[in-house]
């Protein structure tokens, strides 16, 4: 009996989704085009269950490369409207289309200049009439036997949000690597579980000079490799020291002219170093504690194997916090 009831609920919701798929039309394509052409964000708003679904849609859009945020209609009327700009697209979620708080908000949003898209089950509702684009997410019936609790309708709304996110993924040529970029916690975790040998720079891109090198040449080497430092390496490969931008700044402050010097006078001898097998997490800890951004990598007896920059561990060369 119970199992049968549960199965019926699933069937009702599935039927609702199938009908929804059949009704997707040109409006959906217009919605996608509006979002893709907008330079701002997708502002999602809804009340009650629609609000909860709206938050999930925001999360999905953000993780798939479409900047989005949730705006509570009541909070919006008390100051949060300030976050909406004319470059944004406004996504209003309401099954009935008669949610008073949301309908009060829509004219103001239109005044700001946003495109308003309604995801509603009633295409003749107040919300639908006030919107630029209307997406029909109506279902024939709710799974609730009383027809009161939103069930199939919220499932349809959720599915429509997923459909929107997936279509946007394809339109924006969003890749798996991009998904990782938007999950820095996971991405960083992966990086930190590896060894510094996986990230270190080797070969010609490692800035290095020999002991006795004039400072003018040292500065050229620092400038060439753009790491803010150069390593001082003995002819037999042993690391002798490091010269950083900070060393040069301090020398200039305390001694004045630097061009008459050789690297031995300016360098920090015997800098901290780690082996290529050192976990990236330990290297990051060391760099953070010592407030350094460049870490020489040596073999067990101190011969140079490479250099690690803080950005190489954090992956900042490919990660951008603004999501663009």
């Amino acid at each position: 009996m119970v199992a049968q009831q549960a199965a019926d609920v699933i069937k009702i919701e599935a039927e609702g989704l199938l009908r929804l798929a059949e009704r997707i039309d040109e409006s959906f394509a217009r919605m996608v085009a509006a979002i893709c052409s907008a330079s701002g964000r997708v502002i999602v708003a809804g009340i009650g269950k629609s609000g909860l679904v709206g938050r999930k849609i925001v999360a999905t859009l953000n993780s798939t490369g479409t900047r989005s945020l949730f705006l509570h209609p009541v909070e919006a009327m008390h100051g949060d409207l300030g976050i909406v700009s004319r470059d944004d697209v406004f996504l209003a979620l309401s099954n009935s289309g008669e949610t008073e708080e949301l309908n009060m908000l829509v004219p103001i949003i239109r005044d700001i200049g946003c495109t308003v898209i309604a995801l509603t089950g009633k295409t003749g509702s107040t919300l639908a009439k006030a919107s630029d684009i209307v997406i029909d997410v109506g279902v024939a019936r709710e799974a609730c036997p009383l027809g009161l609790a939103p069930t199939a309708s919220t499932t349809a709304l959720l599915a429509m949000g997923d459909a929107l996110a997936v279509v946007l993924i394809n339109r924006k040529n969003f890749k798996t690597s991009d998904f990782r970029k938007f999950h820095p916690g996971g991405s960083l975790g992966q990086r930190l579980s590896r060894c510094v040998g996986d990230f270190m720079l080797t070969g010609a891109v490692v800035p290095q000079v020999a002991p006795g090198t004039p400072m003018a040449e040292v500065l050229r080497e620092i400038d060439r490799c753009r790491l803010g430092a150069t390593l001082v390496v003995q002819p037999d490969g042993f690391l002798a020291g490091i010269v950083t931008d900070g060393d040069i700044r301090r020398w200039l402050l305390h001694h004045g002219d630097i061009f008459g010097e050789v690297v031995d006078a300016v360098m920090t001898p015997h800098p901290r170093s780690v082996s290529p097998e050192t976990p990236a997490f330990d290297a990051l800890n060391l760099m953070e504690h010592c407030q350094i951004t460049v870490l020489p990598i040596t073999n067990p007896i101190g011969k140079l194997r490479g250099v690690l920059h803080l950005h190489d561990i954090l992956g900042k060369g490919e990660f951008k916090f603004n999501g663009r």
Partner: protein
Amino acid sequence: MAAETPQAPRGLICPLVTPLTPRGDLDLTSLQRLIGHVQRFADALLVGDLVWGEAGALSEALRLDLLAAVRDAAEGQKPLLVTVTGRQPTDTRRFMHTAEALLTRGGDPGGVFWVDYPLVYHSNRGLPQFYRELAAETRFPFIVANHPSLVQPLKGPGRLKNIRTGVLKKIAANPALVGLIFVGDLKRALNYHLALRGRDLFTFYDGDERGFLKSPASGGVVAGGSNLLPRVWQAVTRSSLNWLEEDRPFAAHPTTLLESGIMLHALGALCRTAPAVQLKTILQRVGIIASDAAALPADARDPVWEADLMAFLRAYDIL
């Protein structure tokens, strides 16, 4: 002997090999390079050790030259442990006096500790009295070393190769004795600890690297391998002695420590049959010293050993 005896250094004690030229002279350049290589990581330097420094095969003049050179190169940055053991008690006493004069010539030399292997030239009988007299003649404290395998070839059958526990207890009643470098079995180590439990500020070192890697002594280790791998030995020593508090940000990862321990075991195995000679060869191969010339016979480098050495150097990217 000074009124207030300094405490012996704890941690990693590096027994420096003695770099020689092919002619048998002291190779000063290599020595300076070696000290520069190890000094940052070691907590103290042991000069002219009988095992790693070949002191038993060096002339007294060369040992003094070595001491003067180490003193100059180390620049007082780390405590110096100086082996004074001679073939006879009189040799030991004479070397100690000459070395003290050398070290104090330019003023206070900082932390200096005499290291002595008493059973090389003395029996257990009368040893407490001998140390009372010796300690009265110097301002520096003593660290005694118990090394049965070093003593074995020098003793006749039936003679004791270890310091008797009761004798050690009497020696250690002298405040000038501040530490023990121990090689031997665990049972004897425990007996020594029990005998000295009432003694404050007494430091136990492992004189056997393998022993330290298996069950570390409370005071540290005299590790010949630290001539080659001082950074690795430092990390393992600090971890073994639970010195993590001061080094927390740099505490090595457990996996790294495990791999380091395996590496140190492998190095120890390469230096088992002729420690100083084999270690010098390795140091020469990687470019830390210029020559592998040794004062001791150099017949321990057979083709199998050479193959093992190359495999070790390649496996750990040391070349």
